[in-house]
């Protein structure tokens, strides 16, 4: 995933002909191996009836095979190079969502949604902070009215200490 794009283009001309598929397939193989390991403690087939571990292992093996085939085709066939991964966007959007999950219980909806909005906004390099803050305030007010009142969701508005 964190393959530098520069080396990827060189790879494309070198040994690995379709890096996009090759690494994609390898990742699927890794996921399948992980699933096999995670379901290894489950009971298998007894007599005619499936145990809880039978189907997960069956599909993990299937994914293993398919992932290997994708990787192999990426190794042998010419394919597109690895695409450039953005860093700023994914980082700040994920951070915003994680901040939301941590803050929503203790801090309430108002603070959480405003903070979450600002962190997410940092994910774009076009962001102008003045307008962002204004829109953020409007959004927070909107959320505070929309979700608990209009949609009737049981969300706390204010931090726990104030309640």
């Amino acid at each position: 995933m964190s393959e530098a794009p520069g080396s990827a283009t060189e790879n494309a001309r070198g040994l690995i002909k379709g890096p996009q598929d090759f690494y994609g397939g390898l990742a699927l193989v890794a996921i399948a191996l992980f699933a096999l390991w995670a379901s290894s403690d489950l009971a298998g087939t007894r007599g005619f009836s499936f145990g809880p571990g039978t189907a997960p292992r069956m599909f993990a093996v299937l994914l293993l095979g398919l992932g290997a085939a994708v990787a192999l085709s990426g190794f042998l066939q010419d394919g597109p190079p690895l695409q450039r991964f953005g860093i700023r966007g994914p980082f700040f959007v994920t951070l915003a969502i994680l901040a939301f999950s941590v803050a929503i219980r203790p801090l309430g909806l108002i603070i959480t949604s405003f903070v979450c909005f600002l962190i997410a906004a940092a994910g774009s390099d076009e962001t102008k902070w003045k307008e962002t803050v204004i829109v953020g305030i409007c959004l927070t007010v909107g959320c505070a009215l929309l979700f608990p009142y209009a949609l009737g969701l049981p969300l706390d508005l204010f931090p726990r200490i104030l309640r």
Partner: protein
Amino acid sequence: MDFDIFSHLGLGFSVAFSPVNLGLCLIGALVGTLVGVLPGIGTIATVAMLLPITFGLPPVGALIMLAGIYYGAQYGGSTTSILVNIPGEAGSVVTALDGFQMAKQGRAGPALAIAAIGSFFAGCVATVLIAILGAPLTKLALAFGPAEYFSLMVLGLIFAVVLAKGSVLKAIAMIAFGVLLSMVGSDIETGASRMSFNIPELADGLGFATVAMGLFGFAEIIRNLDPGAAMDRDLVQQKISGLMPTKKDIKDSTPAILRGTVLGSILGILPGGGAVIASFAAYTFEKKISKHPERFGRGAIEGVAAPESANNAAAQTSFIPLLTLGIPPNAVMALMVGAMTIHGIVPGPQVMQKQPELVWGMIASMWIGNLMLLVINLPMVGIWVRLLRVPYRLLFPCIVVFCSIGIYSVNNAPMDVVLTAAFGLVGYWLVKHDFEPAPMLLGMVLGPLMEENLRRALLISRGDWSVFLTRPLSATLMAIAAFLLLLAVLPSLRKKRDEVFVESES
């Protein structure tokens, strides 16, 4: 038989015309259009994002609203393709070809009107078709045993893979990945905890809304933030004057609408990207039979009318396999299944018999929803256009906040929000490696059903795997699946399949 249809539809309309359900249908269609119009957010993402707000409603209302959201989102998608040349989803790619040209010539009004009228007509035909085909297909489905069901699901998935865009191998791998994900959590029969690592939030399995919102909602937002992904928005600046199409427009587009409807209705029933294929096919077909094919791509009204009708007809008839067989033919229908399961409804033939008011109410509301789109949205085009001018840098943090609140409110569980973030990154990674997330979602929804039927079939046959090939119905389904798969891998057909997509996209 024929009277059945009327009594069923009558029941449906009596349910759908209750003030509450009418209101929900209206809100769904409006909100769906509102989100669907936002650039860069496709139909699946719209439905996935709005899924949580329907969870608090009674089942019938929730499904009616979701269906409304679905049409609204589709309609919103065609609006953006005509006005800004940014197709919100794959299905409206071809609409953008001629629609945007018409808009440039100052004929955005007629283009939008014809799109809406075509969609409405197609919706009417498809609604009747669902009512007619529903009952007999349900009877057929009741004759199915576990082996047949398993084979049918295999066939459905293979269909989805063959008709979808991109590599067949990778799509099947995605299905296997999805099925594997569906197995996290308690085992249905023994209750044993599977692959949940003693995390209490995983004991019930991965939430469907969580995965869908992550894969389609957050992943799409992140992807739009990529450098270079900045969309050039050459929004048509002229004022949209006059919605009414001329007499010539109507004369030109009527046959196109009829052909699009027929093509869409048929293709929609088939599993796979029904609506997408339908609009591509309808456009290509119109161009082929036209006396002046050179007009296409330069603002031919048939190029808007045909794909839009086909798109909508297919969107509706794709409910048929879902309602009668309980098998979602595409990702949006998979989301509907997810919503049904959350309300404790297992889609399939039993629902049609035990809860007719639910099924027929939903079918009737489809027609009402289409009418509402026609009546309400055309006058509101001005508002949608203004919405299109909202810059993405302000839009996306709002969506992040809304989605977080939505996903949190499903179970009031912060862990769900964390998982959604994780699936957002997974979805982003998948797109970067050219893996389609839609088959994965399909696999995830069908996973538990497949496992259950596989287990039962093998238990009944006393562990004999040949049961799938010795029971005639099951064997037929498997044979078709194998045949399709073979066709898809054959180089000659594959080339043709790729050509269809390439031609329509360029």
